[in-house]
């Protein structure tokens, strides 16, 4: 691997590690402004994480910190595999199914870690989180199939800017339809049912404390950034735009984050069955697009 590529991958990783908490700070500020509050500074999430990392971990005696750490390791692996600032990835031929599996694996491992705490609230949160993942997977593969059929590859190299490289309008439609699914998977309101603060007292995170909580929160923030980045990679013709694609990517990433924060403020939390029913109906639409994509030119 060339030194230039290594430098680009390291830059991507540093960007993800720094920008994920910053975006969360922006979201908190937006949320506060909509609610007529002054809100914390946009760097507040850094302070929160730093405070948690300084604390020693107090957790349930049966909690598996190995699984929580593995979850963080998987999200770091995902952040190397998804093009962010630069298009360089590790491994060089990054694959979209591999990326999705890394992100899901990170979520599943965090759920398993949480469940080992023996807390009934955590178990309820785990059950809701995994059910949400199942529902999303009811829809997402159909969109991926539509894209794969027309692009002819699952490699990120060829999927970047897919609607522009493919002549089929179905690809653009499939990429657009991914947006709501990414919003749901990012656990914003009204779909934030696994943590559900007033009901489950943080659900999955209830038994995490100190450094483990910091790792869990950091994992969640990185996951949000990566999911939006993945969508933007698919949507923007980054190879064509060259260096211009970096400011465009950053602008759109921030804009999406702001949009998500606004939506998060507007909506009230759904009940679990409402969330599952909503995604189930949405998956019927995605399936329709996949069938259309099969026969469309």
């Amino acid at each position, binding site marked *: 691997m060339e030194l230039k590529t290594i430098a680009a991958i390291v830059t991507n990783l540093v960007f993800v590690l720094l920008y994920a908490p910053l975006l969360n700070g922006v979201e908190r500020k937006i949320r506060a402004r909509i609610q007529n509050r002054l809100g914390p500074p946009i760097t507040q999430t850094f302070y929160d994480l730093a405070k948690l990392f300084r604390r*020693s*971990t*107090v957790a*349930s005696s*049966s*909690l598996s910190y*190995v699984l929580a*750490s*593995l979850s*963080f*390791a998987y999200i770091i*692996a995902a952040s*190397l595999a998804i093009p962010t600032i630069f298009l360089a990835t590790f*491994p060089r*031929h990054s*694959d979209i*199914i*591999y990326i999705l*599996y*890394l992100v899901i694996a990170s979520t*599943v491992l965090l*759920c*398993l870690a949480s*469940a*080992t*705490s*023996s*807390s*009934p609230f*955590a*178990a*309820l949160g785990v*059950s809701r989180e*995994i059910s949400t*993942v*199942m*529902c999303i*997977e*009811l829809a*997402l*593969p159909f969109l*991926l199939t539509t894209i*794969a*059929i027309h692009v*002819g*590859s*699952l490699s990120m*190299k*060829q999927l970047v800017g897919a609607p522009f490289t493919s002549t089929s309008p179905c690809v653009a439609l499939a990429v657009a339809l991914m947006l709501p699914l990414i919003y749901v998977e990012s656990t914003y309101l009204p779909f934030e049912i696994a943590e559900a603060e007033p009901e489950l007292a943080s659900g999955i995170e209830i*038994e995490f404390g*100190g*450094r483990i909580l*910091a790792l869990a929160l950091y994992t969640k923030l990185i996951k949000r950034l990566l999911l939006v980045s993945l969508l933007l990679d698919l949507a923007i013709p980054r190879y064509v735009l060259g260096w211009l694609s970096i400011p465009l990517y950053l602008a759109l990433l921030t804009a999406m984050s702001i949009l998500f924060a606004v939506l998060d403020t507007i909506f009230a939390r759904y009940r*679990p*069955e409402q969330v*599952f*029913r909503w995604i189930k109906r949405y998956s019927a639409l995605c399936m329709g697009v*996949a*069938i259309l994509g*099969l026969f469309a030119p």
Partner: protein
Amino acid sequence: MHLDLNTFFLDAPHTLPLLLALTLLATLVSTPLRGRASTIISLTFSAILSLYVLTLSLHVLATHRVVEIPLLDLGSIPSLVLVVDPLTAFFLAIVSIVGLASSIYGVGYVQRFARKEHLGWFSLNYVLFLLSMMFVVSVRDLLWFVVFWELMTFSSQFLVAFEKEKSVALRAGLKYFCVTKFGTELMIVASVVYVWCSTGSTSFEALSKILRSNNVVEYIVVTTFLALAMLIKCASVPFHSWLPDAHPEAPTPVSALLSGAMIKVPIYFLARLFLQLSKPSIVWGYTVAVLGCVTLFVGTMYALVQHDSKRLLAYHSIGQIGYVLLALGTAIALYASNQPILAFAAFTASLYHALNHAIFKSLLFLTAGSVLFRTGTRDLNVLGGLAKRMPITALCALIASLSIAGVPPFNGFASKWLIYASTMLSRSPLSLAGAVAMFVSSVTTASFVKYFVTMFAGRPRIDVSRVREVPPSMVVPQLLLASLCIALGIAPGLVARASMGIASAMDLPSYVPRTWFILDIPRYGSMIVPLLLASLISVVLPIALIIARPRLGVEPWVSGALYTSSRSMPAKSFYRDFEEVVHEPYSLGEKLGRVFFVEIPRVALERIRLLVHSFEYGYASTIILLTVCIAIGLGVMMLWS
């Protein structure tokens, strides 16, 4: 002393018969013994035989040599010759890996039945079952194929119904026998009668001659009968109902053999039938792929709602065999439609997933068996908190769960990735089947989160204070299989290379995999390198561990109330919301099940009872009816031919 491997394997025609004879002799001599001695003797010989067959298979796969082992020459009856070519070697490797692990595990496990059951009877059937599976994939004559197939069915049904005081086990054994016997009858009609009447021979060459002739009727009749027999035996939907009853009721080492090895035997024959003995057909390719897709969906969705550990695993066996069938069907269809690269990828995926499923499913059965061995229960609603008491079993269960869930870099991910890639990129209706398979993978993940959490995390509702880790003879095979889950995950090229050798031997187009550590589909630009992920995780994980290491352990917070086991979530409540919303598969399955397995059999059995008063039990009547039907069918066929 220097051991020349080539001489050793070239001498297989002498070594293997000797080992087979010794195993059989030792088993027969020890059969009258009721105690553990018989099991120790026969399972030790089974393990040695499995080890030898495994090394022989690996040698054939590495060298692409064909080993012929003549066993019996009976004059007018076709000679019994074992032929180990690369495809046979691959499936022999599957049988022998699971056989080796189960045999070692069984020595300790059968303590459960000491003084209750006749262990000599168990040993005899166990050895016959293992040997018959090895023979079925090695013979090249339909007559011997049917003979060993029958032996496989007979011995395994005695093993399923081994615990005689359990009426559930007896019923499961009978159901398994009746359903799979029906499949065998179809096979007898197709092979022994039809092929023999047409060509005067029952060899695979004679079968191939019929299938490659231009007679469409012959082709349809023979392939349909043989394919139906195979689909029944591998529990493809709609012929799956016997499996969730039979597999859990068998003693655990047998459950591992049934799910890990036996349901792969029909896959072997389907691959041989549709990719070598006949020209690949688009119609059969789509039929097998669609059945695979339905099977993986139905099996896994039903697995999600189970809360008996072994029954949950049995339903997943249906689901996972669906993946294998989907990949195999895709390979047949794509070879027929001249898409050789994706076809070879799908073919590799089917072999790879068959091997992976054999490893992680037998491991899962061994972990469930270990828990059953120590706690005496399979009910996930009452189990919990066993990770501290059975740490190695918990670790193995975690590795197996992550493998079956398809978490990279474990072995399940690589084969599933190849299934998704080969189907999705095919630009055909099979692409949609790939999407369904990907959804079902998430259901599998959910199911195994429940399996692991309810068994090893949380608090138990039964007394587990005296539970401890299982003995070393039961731990070692689990660790062996867990290591294979990791090794085959990070070196997928190993299987891809073996698959290339198999495809070449079957005259199928293939491509050369890049290295042992890369799985790729050339021209489509898709590849994965699980070793890189494993290396990355091994760097990041220690850092995260140092950061996250807990300093103080406390009791979980339960709104200030005292924490008792009654507050932990039972397995049946785990995905209740999801099951209520996505209820269609269950309600449809219930309706179809009521019609096909309750109403129609009830009416049919009532009619049969009226006819055959002397038989009280319905299944016996069914067998008679089937036999009569088959006899009529045979007569018609013979007249026709």
